[in-house]
């Protein structure tokens, strides 16, 4: 089943130099496993292909049912150098929530995941 992150998670993003971070938080504690299994480093790197110039790093925070992604080269130089509207990466959070992942039907049903419309 296709599941859109917006329907199972919330997020906040920020900046450090030319790197944006996105913290992705499960809307229900039991949905953290879905984030952990399917929102891989590679899936996120592919999602942002062409928009960031550097690598993606992923950290797990099971205590907060959250993942933290560092998106390097995401801010056109970052800080005051950046010409971007979103020079501080404030809405990379919602850009990540557009990601749609494939979850096996049985697992999706057990966890009560909403299907992407």
């Amino acid at each position, binding site marked *: 089943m296709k599941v859109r992150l917006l329907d199972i998670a*919330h997020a*906040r993003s920020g900046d450090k130099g030319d790197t944006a971070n996105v*913290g992705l938080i499960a*809307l229900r504690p039991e949905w953290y496993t879905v984030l952990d299994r399917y929102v891989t480093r590679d899936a996120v790197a592919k999602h942002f292909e*062409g*928009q960031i110039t550097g690598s993606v790093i992923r950290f797990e925070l099971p205590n907060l049912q959250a993942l933290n992604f560092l998106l390097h080269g995401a801010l056109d130089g970052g*800080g005051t150098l950046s*010409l971007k*509207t979103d020079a501080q990466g404030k809405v990379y959070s919602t*850009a990540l929530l557009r990601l749609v992942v494939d979850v096996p039907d049985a697992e999706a049903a057990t966890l009560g995941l909403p299907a992407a419309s």
Partner: protein
Amino acid sequence: MSEAKQDKVVRVASGQGFWGDWLEAPRRQVEGGPVDYLMLDYLAEVTMSIVQKQKERDPRMGYARDFIGAMESVFPAVAERGVKVIANAGGVNPMACADAVLAAADKAGVRGKIRIGVVTGDDILDRLDTLLADGHELKNMDTGEPLAGIRDRVLSANAYIGSTPIVEALQRGANVVVTGRSTDTSLTMAPLRHEFGWAADDWNALAAGIVAGHILECGAQCSGGNCLHDWRNIPDLANVGYPIAEARADGSFVITKHPGTGGRVSIPSVTEQLVYEMGDPHAYITPDVVADFTSIQLAADGENRVRVHGITGAPPTPFLKVSIAYRAGFKAVGSLVYSWPDAMEKAQLADRVLRERLDRLGLRFDQVLSEFVGATSTHGPLAGDGRDAPEVQYRIGVRGGDRAAVERFTREIAPLVLNGPPSVTGFAGGRPKVEEIVAYWPALLDKRAVSTAVTIVE
């Protein structure tokens, strides 16, 4: 630990998350219910260079002037009720900042009741060449480049200092502590360390203080502001309550806000702030301690109350982070709005026309960036192609070392209104302004090269 000590609760209220934050917040925090400390965070990276420029123009300036108004609004609480204020409002001139607070206290008739601890030592601008000569390379942490390449363009240089001098100021009886570039988190951790007598190597307790500081340092951003989770139902943001940490000696604390205020303190609202600007969660590095954010436990503790506990920490590194601001050329950004029908196509045509003209003028820039606001500016191709957008703001920016080229660019936008694609508006703001760019050079410096001092003034 004695029972009395374990029962002691210290309340630190956050009243300002950056210079420019809500002017009402400090007063609301000291009047809305019991608090022991008011923490005001004024400094962002960009702020240090702004205050440095102000100090160059007038040696009595160089600090966050909003702080004086904030102090005026809380003098009764500080003078009569024993609330203490801790602020990194000192910028590059903490002593002048303290003098201005004392002058305001004089006017308010409370001068005799204000005792200010001024923390200095973070400003290393005058010592840069000595430090370099002594072998401190101050290489750019991100790129590895040596500082020599930009040395002659440096505007300000400050080490991020920790909680120790703030604790000393409190021990010496200050009821207002003014610092320069103290870390945002130390403004909250220091009063807890002071009140509970945490040892300098009590890593778990210090880390807990840092986590409390991280939650409070952005003001209402943990209590319903900028909160994506269930945002439609967050009540009464017009009357939003700024956060308060109710801390205990064991390192646990409750995040809450005053009764009767708007906003919301919930596990999701606090979690969003915890992940904000996060790097490696296992190692949140500060001058005093390295906090492990994967140890943080959150628990609901009643309405608008979240209990935070279980935090662990480890010894700090031998380095302090240094932020160096330097002149890095010029930039300008201009925009026009294109309307239906075919707003996006018109905006894209305008972009091609403008870029061709810039090319023909032979103008050279380090960077030219075009964005289509309302279509793709923040989410890029993830947002689609913008073909259905009823209106699109065409936004173009340039950056480069040649001020004249950037000036010339600013003259090329308005003409498009008459000599470019149709259905265009939104140019009333006039020609864009050319801005000098002040960029940041993050570096590490051996802690032993920085010594802080506390001066009491009253």
